[in-house]
């Protein structure tokens, strides 16, 4: 049986842990990163079924990270999460073809639903 693996890139350790717990409780496997560089260095990044990506990262913004991942052949759908919702971020999320855009604090249902649909679309 295929285990759905979700990558979480979020620099706030509380949010990272909370999102990871939620998705694990909902039946997904998760792998957490707190910076863009850490994910780029990971050899298995491309194996993920979905990426939950924070916009504000310490070393780069989430949109740049997605572009760099895409250049390495990463094709999994991306769910953008942000604490700072504005027109520019929404546009940037559209530009990278984000599967969903969620503003913190988001309901667990909306994240689990987005991740489930994104992972299903990927398979």
């Amino acid at each position, binding site marked *: 049986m295929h285990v759905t693996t979700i990558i979480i890139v979020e620099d*706030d350790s509380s949010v990272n*842990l*909370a999102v990871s717990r939620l998705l694990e409780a909902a039946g997904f496997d998760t792998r957490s990163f707190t910076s863009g560089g850490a994910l780029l260095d990971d050899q298995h990044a491309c194996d993920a079924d979905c990426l939950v990506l924070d916009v504000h990262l310490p070393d780069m913004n989430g949109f740049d990270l997605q572009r760099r991942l895409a250049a390495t052949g990463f094709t999994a759908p991306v769910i953008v999460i942000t*604490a700072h919702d504005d027109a520019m971020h929404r546009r940037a999320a559209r530009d990278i073809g984000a599967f969903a855009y969620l503003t913190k604090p*988001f309901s*667990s249902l909306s994240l689990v639903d987005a991740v489930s649909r994104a992972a299903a679309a990927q398979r």
Partner: protein
Amino acid sequence: MIGEITASVAHEVTQPLSAILSNVETAELLLSQPQPNVSMVREILADVRQDDLRADSIVRRLRTLLRKRELQLEDVDVNALASSVLSLVLPDAVRRNVLIRTSLDPGLPRATADPVHLQQVLLNLVINAMDSMKNTPVEQRVLEIRTERVAGHHLTVTVLDKGDGFEPAKKDKLFDSFYTTKDEGLGLGLSIARSIVRLHGGAIWAENRQGGGAAFAFTLPFKAP
């Protein structure tokens, strides 16, 4: 600037709030299972407590920043203060093709006010006024500051624009925290401005202007001569 401080604080406080919501909903999910993982729920509750305290400390920090200076009341030449705010925003006004006019009452008494806080209020109103005129034809983009003495021991400062005005039904909401009509605003500027004006014993309000645009005015007390 107040706007920058609040933007940063709002971003920071959203993180623990977001973590709390996810954690609580995860705990609910776990507890709905036939054999709940109680030790995980306990771990979650400890983190919820931590994040709650974290949010509280962020809010306390904002309060400290805003109260950094207790009101230091002095006799303030409001006309001079208005002119200094206008000279601060002049480069921005030129860039936005906004013409600035003043109508300053030469007989205006000095207000009893904290000049730093007062400058923040005026700056906020002036920047809002310029923001409101981004869709106004260039030749009509006029911002005006008026000062005048009113009945009793008060003076009034009014910032007038030729922007979009506001929906009359929303008039009561304009000064509420987190109410904004801007794409990228947080909706705290006018709420903080109102707090500052009230701390001074004044009042602040807004009116739509006949012929378009809005007028934001506030009063300040002055000492009887």
